[in-house]
């Protein structure tokens, strides 16, 4: 814990606003978090709590209004040129909506080849071999490479999304509700795959979800957000067993059947 790999320091993001337009809307306010290398931080909160915005900030796609994000000790706002390219290779996202994560006019092979092309990795044949191997690794056959996204089910798309996220051998994967659009049975499979790959590659992960059962299953630490603020932050078991904040307690109480959720966790372990 003394040397966190991802460090979020007092980050805020305000949308809109300006000299003549009033104060704007604060999506994230003064959030500080730290994740040690190889661990998963689960971020929970209801819709609009700022968790997805926080993820986009860590991904470097949204500039924070205030505060810093450090990955491996580097302030990501200061990255330019080669350092920025390197950052893009090391930090990858998995998005929420499998329907819009892929360009509908490209085959899965073209989609998976793009990161390798952008970073100039391998020859054409090496890229194809890597794509085929990776598809196998996420539980899809090489025949999926020639398909178009709409020919895949939601679960299969999220497997491809995971493959795209790890094809560049990243150190950090940021997952934004990667299973919330899936059926419960498929969710379990994709989560298991995610957990396996996270462990295999030693990924440091931020995992955003509104589903407490999912968060509990994948996270070492848990952060609870409400209205853009950090409400509670601590080791997963502590947050779930002995929540300090009233809001966390209400969130946990709102899970329809906690025992059922825990039973599923055990079944998957």
């Amino acid at each position, binding site marked *: 814990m003394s040397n966190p790999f991802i460090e979020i320091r007092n980050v805020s993001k305000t949308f809109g606003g300006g000299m003549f337009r009033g104060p704007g809307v604060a999506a994230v306010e003064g959030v500080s978090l730290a994740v040690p290398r190889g661990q998963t931080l689960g971020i929970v909160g209801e819709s609009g709590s700022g968790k997805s915005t926080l993820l986009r900030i860590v991904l470097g796609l949204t500039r924070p209004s205030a505060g810093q994000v450090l990955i491996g000790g580097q302030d990501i706002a200061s990255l330019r040129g080669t350092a920025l390219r390197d950052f893009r290779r090391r930090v990858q996202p998995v*998005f929420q909506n499998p329907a819009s*994560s892929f*360009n509908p006019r490209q085959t899965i092979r073209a989609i998976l080849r793009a*990161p390798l092309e*952008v970073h100039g990795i391998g020859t054409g044949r090496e890229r194809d071999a890597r794509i085929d191997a990776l598809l196998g690794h996420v539980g899809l056959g090489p025949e999926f490479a020639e398909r178009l996204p709409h020919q895949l089910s939601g679960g299969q798309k999220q497997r491809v999304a995971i493959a795209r996220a790890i094809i560049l051998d990243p150190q950090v994967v940021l997952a934004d509700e990667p299973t919330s659009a899936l059926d419960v049975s498929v969710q379990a499979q994709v989560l298991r795959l995610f957990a396996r790959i996270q462990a295999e590659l030693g990924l440091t992960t931020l995992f955003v979800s509104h589903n407490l059962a999912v968060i509990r299953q994948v996270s070492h630490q848990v952060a609870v957000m409400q209205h853009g603020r950090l409400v509670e932050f601590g080791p997963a078991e502590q947050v779930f067993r002995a929540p300090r904040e009233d809001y966390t307690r209400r969130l946990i109480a709102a899970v329809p059947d906690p025992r059922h959720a825990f039973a599923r966790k055990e079944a998957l372990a």
Partner: protein
Amino acid sequence: MGREINWPRWRLALIGGVIVLTVLLVAIFAPQVAPYGPLDLDVAQMLSPPTAAHPLGTDELGRDVLSRAIFATRVSMQVAFTAALLGLVVGTVIGVLAAYFGGWLDLVLMRFMEVLFSFPAILLAVVLMAALGTSVFNAMLAIGIIFIPGFSRLARAATQAVMRQQYVEAAQAIGMGHTRIIAREVLPNIIAPLLVEAAAAFSYAILLESMLSFLGLGAQPPDPSWGNMISTGRGFMAQAPWISVVPGCAIFLTVLGFNLVGDGLRDAFDPHLRD
């Protein structure tokens, strides 16, 4: 994809396609198809009604109306094609840049497009022609400029829709450059509505070119164009109505054909109508 084509639904588009194809072939092979040259005079047969020698009659100088209408197809197609292409390309570039980069660039480009849009098309064309001088080339330019704001708005709206898709974020997250994102992720996903718009622009361009020629601003006599043929024929409506009626019908049929094809394209690209 191996399915039976629903012919009744595509019947109109098919008719349009046949018309368009015929018009294009006539334009390309005008010298082979036309019985006379567009400028050949038959002074013994001035203002002749349709006869075996002149199937659609002759004009006030004894020129064959059918042949002139056939050669005029070339001017119309050239102008319409170039103008629609100019509008499509420039409008798409402006719209995509405005939506992609947003901010002040979007603001400046779109306000400029609104200024262009606020002029009535014909007035703008006449003003541009007055400024540029009358020629077929300038007619293409003027009509193309008229199309730019429409295409740019369409391209901007479509690009904004694509920019909200997560695959654009995914492309940014792997470090893909702007040019590549636009070429790979944006353009292929906005091109369908733009092509439909281009078909509509094409038929509107035919009309505009005819109007400009009618006003004496397009193709200059003695070169034939549908518009200037109608214009000269106007003085002979009582004695020789065919001089105006023939190019009028040509305009009507051609525009109808391109509109039918445009509607067919729109239906084909519209996912809600897919059976």
